[in-house]
């Protein structure tokens, strides 16, 4: 059901991207930011929405991807697409190494361990100044033209199309993953682990693979942000970013690919509008909306859309 809606939504997404390029040429940078947020939120939702496990430190993999781009360029990996996949691979490997402790625990220990992973990486990046620039971040890394042809122009056109291409790729991959036999098993873990064990399922293995894939995709998102903004900083690893992605997924509708993308668009736009006005009130509003979404608006935006569609059918 959800997968079908997500498939139907794919052309809408494409049209929306083209339309926004034509209609809002002055806002390409913002739209690029939103698409990167969508990539990150999609990666996170593979865990929360599809596997039913919460991570409080998912920015670790986003930031890891971003720093990988910057650090790899010192070793001559300056071509963006190559850097992108290298960054995704780095995040995947780190996620895979960490996955046994994430997969083995119960829900409570998992909150703690994911929070710990996020803080640990943040602290490590903060201290490894020689590699990461510490609190100052990094901006002196080289990037060659995309595919050897397209420079990242200051109007942000290349960045826009590049981000969109990665978002489309991630969306398509996740559509396939969530409708695969593996995706069915993830839904099984989300719905009932007792039953999963009783059909002989290797739940820890499934969770570990889900964590690895999710980490890899988050790494792609971070890499795109580093490349399009040509800047890497500690906040890309921070708790605020981890919390933000939870909110995007929840507000958009966890477990629905299209909902998460809509959530990212809405969140990104409102954040841009409000946070320049007053970051304090933005955080307050965010907290209140998140609480309200748990109590009042189950299923987020996608849930509301589905209810609307059901209501219209009657």
């Amino acid at each position, binding site marked *: 059901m959800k997968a079908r809606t997500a498939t139907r939504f794919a052309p809408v997404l494409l049209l929306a991207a083209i339309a926004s390029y034509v209609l809002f040429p002055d806002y390409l940078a913002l739209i690029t930011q939103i698409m990167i947020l969508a990539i990150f939120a999609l990666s996170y939702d593979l865990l929360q929405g599809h596997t039913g496990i919460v991570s409080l430190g998912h920015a670790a993999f986003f930031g890891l991807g971003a720093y990988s781009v910057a650090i790899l360029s010192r070793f001559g990996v300056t071509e963006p697409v190559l850097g992108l996949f290298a960054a995704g691979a780095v995040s995947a490997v780190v996620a895979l190494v960490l996955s046994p402790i994430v997969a083995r625990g119960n*829900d409570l*220990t998992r909150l703690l361990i994911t929070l*710990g992973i996020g803080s640990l990486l943040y*602290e490590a990046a903060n201290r490894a100044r020689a590699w990461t620039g510490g609190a100052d971040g990094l901006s002196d890394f080289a990037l060659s033209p995309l595919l050897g042809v397209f420079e990242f122009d200051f109007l942000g056109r290349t960045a826009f199309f590049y981000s969109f291409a990665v978002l489309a790729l991630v969306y398509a991959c996740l559509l396939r993953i969530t409708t695969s036999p593996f995706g069915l098993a993830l839904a099984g873990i989300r719905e009932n682990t007792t039953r999963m064990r009783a059909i002989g399922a290797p739940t820890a293995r499934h969770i570990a693979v889900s964590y690895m894939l999710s980490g890899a995709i988050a790494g792609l998102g971070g890499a795109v942000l580093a490349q399009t903004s040509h800047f890497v900083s500690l906040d890309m690893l921070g708790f605020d970013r981890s919390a933000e992605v939870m909110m995007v997924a929840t507000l958009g509708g966890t477990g629905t690919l299209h909902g998460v993308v809509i959530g990212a668009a809405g969140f990104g736009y409102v954040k841009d509008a409000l946070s320049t006005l007053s970051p304090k009130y933005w955080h307050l509003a965010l907290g209140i909306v998140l*609480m309200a979404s748990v109590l009042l608006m189950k299923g987020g935006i996608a849930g509301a859309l589905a209810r609307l569609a059901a209501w219209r059918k009657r």
Partner: protein
Amino acid sequence: MINTASVLLDGVSYGMLLFLFSIGLSITLGLMRFVNLAHGAFAMIGGYVTVSLVNLLGVPFLLTLPAAFAVSGVVGFVLERVVIHRVYREPELQQVLFSIGLAFAASALATIVFGPQQQPIALPSWLAQRISLLGVPVGASRVFLIGVAAVAAVLLVLLFNRTLFGARIRAAVDNRRAAEGIGVRVGRLFAVTFALGAAMAGLGGALAVDSLGLDPTMPFKYLIPVLMVVVIGGPGSIPGSLVASLVLGVVDTMFKYAVPDVGPFVVYALLVGMLLAFPRGLAAIRA
């Protein structure tokens, strides 16, 4: 030698603060199965109550402690009755999201009212001085902090083990339905327990201003050690939480002092090692 003793004392005082921060979360997790990641907000409230009373109204520090305890408790009670009790029935994921929202809102409110900066506090001279404890010069405030927290811990244990209220809570933890069956009003019991936990955190927050500082990031700052205490000590266990807090506090302080470069990572190493060895927490082995 003298140094070791004073570092140890610092560790114990940090551990006692962790105990005050975490005991409410531990009890609500054991009793209501509610994962309250916003519990640190109550410590923050206590801190701001004390700072405001001392700095703005000139109230003596000692008198602000019961105020911090009471205000955090009342805020906790009202929040529980108005919204939080609705979240108990939700799946854990929803509880986590709700409480993160609450923590964000609390942190933002603190920024709006008090600003993002660290809050200074001037301790009375009898606390600011150094005293000699068995020949070792130590900060009086540390000794005072440990004393107050120890008294609070003892009172809490007595409350749980020696009173009808405590018996009701223990009955509800063991078997909620049976407790309801024998006439325990579980809803009200939950609210009072939640308020008590919030009040303990508030007291901790007030005591912590001097040594740990106070700013609007407080709700998140000690989330990792607090969760570690709950996981290691076992949800709902007061002695478990106390031991876990003290061990964590002392180990963390010792390493930060002895090896400043890697000290902050020791907690994480402990965390990973513990979870590799006991993926369901130390408390699970005892059960």
